[in-house]
């Protein structure tokens, strides 16, 4: 096995396709988008969260005032004023030719269009990750122009990706042929920026295993 495992671009697309297939099965919202000239593509997901951390999809978010009449004194319940506290998160996964790994781009904004700062995004991150992340934030997340859309996005720096993905594969019977790189990688880096993967991805991808355990 090579010192560091790298993901080739074609393999990246294949793994994305597999990943999206499962996403469609469970309604997780990931989709593939092509650049205007179709030479490049990336995975994209948009979801909405209430500022206190409860995640909702666009479909279940109550639109009518009448929905609120039913609730009386439950402090957990959505109130009409909560509309201003809904945050729209966008996650894009692109392939980096220079690092030969996937890269996570993300941004968030309120419904009125105001973008969230990095600190505000981290408010929504699980406590589990906050301690480490807050120690060295600027060495891990930068703001860059999205390579395809040309808009500012936050980027989780990919310099360590190959290293920890290699650790994952070391001493393991798995290689890129019978695991899904995107699933594994995203399960590790996603939660740091508020993106969590349901366990069903792990089960679905493990069905591609060719070796019995």
């Amino acid at each position: 096995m090579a010192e560091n495992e790298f993901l080739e671009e074609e393999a990246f697309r294949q793994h994305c396709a597999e990943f999206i297939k499962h996403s469609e099965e469970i309604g997780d919202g990931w989709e593939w988008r092509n650049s205007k000239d179709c030479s490049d593509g990336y995975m994209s997901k948009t979801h909405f969260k209430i500022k206190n951390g409860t995640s909702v999809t666009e479909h279940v978010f109550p639109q009518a005032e009448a929905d609120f009449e039913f609730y009386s004194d439950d402090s957990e319940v959505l109130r009409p004023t909560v509309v201003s506290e809904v945050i729209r998160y966008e996650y894009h996964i692109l392939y980096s030719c220079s690092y030969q790994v996937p890269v996570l781009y993300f941004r968030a904004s309120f419904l009125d269009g105001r973008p969230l700062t990095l600190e505000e995004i981290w408010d929504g991150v699980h406590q589990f990750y906050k301690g480490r992340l807050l120690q060295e934030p600027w060495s891990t997340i930068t703001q860059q122009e999205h390579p395809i859309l040309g808009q500012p996005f936050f980027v989780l720096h990919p310099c360590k990706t190959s290293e920890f993905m290699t650790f994952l594969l070391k001493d393991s019977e798995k290689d890129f042929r019978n695991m899904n790189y995107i699933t594994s990688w995203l399960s590790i880096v996603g939660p740091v920026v508020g993106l969590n993967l349901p366990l069903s991805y792990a089960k679905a991808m493990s069905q591609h295993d060719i070796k019995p355990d």
Partner: protein
Amino acid sequence: MAEPERPPMSLPGGPAGGEGATELGPDTNTLEPAPSAAVSPGTEEPTGDAKKKIDVLLKAVGDTPIMKTKKWAVERTRTIQGLIDFIKKFLKLVASEQLFIYVNQSFAPSPDQEVGTLYECFGSDGKLVLHYCKSQAWG
């Protein structure tokens, strides 16, 4: 990158059958008791019928220190976060060091995921194998 030295994988005092960590006697486990009652070397109650605890086998990845005791009986409701905290204390890692746990050698479950659920999905031969790694994922 040098491969870390690994001691033989034989379980201390383990039985030939599949009863798991329950058979570990106090004399074979010379380490101090687990800080959390939910994770124990399995001397307390049988995991066979009651199934309140599941057998977890912890394997180190990369240059992460290897735990002397690898097999543990863990309560089903213990979360991944709780297990990580336990391993970090056991390995005497500082609080700021990140530790990752992987299931099925390929997926990092969320910290709120319960060990019992993971066992149902990925357990085999009466145990759940979890890999843990101290590698820095970002920065």
